[in-house]
């Protein structure tokens, strides 16, 4: 990135089924936690602009569309420009990316990126339909093309093909759930803090063959935010800033039938390629990563598409413990979407919070990953037919 950007504070609330909290309270708590996290203190007046990641646009909470004024009201600051960002499951990461661009452009010194989502105010089925499991799922298309589609279907169509082309098995998929649940147990912010065994995953009900219930991430409420500033003033806020080396969005077709492959997502490939180029590093330089395991098979695909291993190798490496929290390249030490939860717009910024804490070695000792280069990556993929991906690369040094 040409203009250097640093994170000086992050804030998150524990993800979960937060029936006792509305969207506003979640946002306010994350914001307060974020301000309090700035080591040398910060005034709300220092923040000169904000980006509000919000995916459902009120569809989940029975309100009208949310906008910049929504966040302005929630944080009690109507003096700054605020833009709402929506870009599928990478919404939070893309709000963060735009916040970084606001600083990198030289227009603002200090800005805020907020992501928040209320998924569980609606009952289960309604919540899933609002999240894209709709009967007609139209978006300008004829219903006969979209009949019976939804999140699990989209991923199951990939999972079947991964089994066919790469030899992956349902056991390989279950192993991702076992790993990420194990990581989630130690994370105080995770939605699911319980272990699962292979047997439990494989005996859970089939949602959409080949995916079981425990191959799917939950519907989760949550909020997360980060404050970024010009790298050259970061030390006035903290002695341990974390730098943003690269942040990129990559795209692919929004219709499944246009995809070149069902074992690779070009959105992720493009997002990662651009982010690595911006950062001037290679996949091998990354110590650990938070990646988008909305379904277990997706994690394996992402690892390959980001470039952490060759296509078809991710499952073997998982079996060898390579991606474990104490392995060569820990993946989803927070528990990932699978255990930490997936409050859509909060997910990406939540990953950034986790990477910030891990790079500053501030997490619980049992889940602190070993740092070598002090570089972390986070990744989301989603939107229509998983056509949108964001990759963010953070580092302890510039």
């Amino acid at each position, binding site marked *: 990135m040409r203009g250097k950007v640093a994170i000086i504070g992050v804030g998150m609330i524990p993800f979960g089924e937060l029936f006792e909290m509305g969207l506003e309270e979640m946002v306010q708590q994350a914001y307060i936690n974020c301000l309090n996290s700035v080591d040398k203190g910060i005034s709300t007046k220092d923040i000169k602009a904000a980006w509000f990641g919000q995916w459902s646009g009120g569809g989940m909470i029975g309100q009208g569309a949310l906008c910049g004024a929504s966040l302005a009201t929630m944080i009690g600051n109507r003096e700054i420009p605020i833009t709402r960002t929506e870009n599928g499951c990478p919404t939070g990461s893309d709000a963060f990316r735009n916040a970084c661009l606001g600083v990198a452009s030289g227009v603002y010194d200090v800005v805020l990126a907020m992501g928040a989502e209320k998924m569980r105010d609606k009952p289960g089925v309604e919540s899933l339909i609002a999240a894209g499991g709709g*009967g007609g799922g139209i978006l300008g298309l*004829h219903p*006969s093309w979209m009949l019976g589609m939804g999140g699990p*279907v989209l991923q199951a*169509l990939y999972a079947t093909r991964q089994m066919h082309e790469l030899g992956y098995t349902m056991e390989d998929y279950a192993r991702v759930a076992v790993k990420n649940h194990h990581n989630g147990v130690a994370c105080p912010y995770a939605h699911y803090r319980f272990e699962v065994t292979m047997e439990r995953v494989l005996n859970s009900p089939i*949602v*959409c063959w080949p995916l079981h219930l425990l191959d799917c991430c939950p519907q989760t409420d949550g909020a997360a935010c980060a404050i970024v500033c010009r790298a050259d003033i970061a030390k006035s806020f903290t002695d341990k800033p974390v730098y943003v080396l690269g942040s990129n969005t990559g795209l692919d077709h929004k*219709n499944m039938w*246009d995809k070149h492959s069902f074992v690779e997502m070009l959105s992720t490939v493009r997002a990662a390629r651009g982010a690595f180029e911006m950062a001037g590093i290679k996949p091998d330089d990354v110590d650990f990563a938070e990646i988008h395991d909305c379904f277990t098979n997706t994690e394996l695909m992402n690892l390959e598409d980001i470039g952490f291993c060759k296509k078809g190798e991710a499952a073997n490496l998982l079996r060898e413990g390579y991606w474990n929290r104490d392995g060569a390249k820990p993946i989803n030490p927070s528990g990932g979407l699978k255990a930490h939860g997936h409050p859509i717009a909060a997910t990406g910024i939540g990953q950034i919070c986790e990477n910030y804490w891990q790079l500053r070695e501030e997490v619980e000792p049992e889940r602190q990953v070993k740092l070598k280069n002090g570089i972390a990556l986070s990744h989301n993929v989603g939107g229509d037919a998983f056509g949108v991906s964001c990759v963010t690369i953070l580092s302890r040094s510039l």
Partner: protein
Amino acid sequence: MVQPAPASPLFWRFNPEIYQRMGMKCSDCGHITYPRRKICPECGSFNVKEHQLSKTGKVHTFCINWTPPPNLEPPIVNVIVDLDGGGRYQGLITEVANPEDVTIGTKVEMVLRKVMTDRGLNIYGYKFRLVEEG
């Protein structure tokens, strides 16, 4: 999610795509897709022409959906089909007694079926039926 009414412009506009299976082929990169459009989504070329999609093909990938949206009886089989003559099509399998009969490479053909009902009106579209070998 908002459903368009059967009498809406969207349904009228898509008549050729649904009932004549009219798609698009790019003269520059060869990409075949639907619905018809002015710009190739694969390469950005404006050099595109109408292309009649085939009724037959082979299953490229599939899943067996035990938790379909309301109004659909589980299990349903979602498929992406490689059409003979090029292009892929997304839809549902119909008239299959045993979902396990569907696998990658299974030969299928499109048949016109009611796909949904909206305010008393039937909406028709294509589903895929297994082709008897022999």
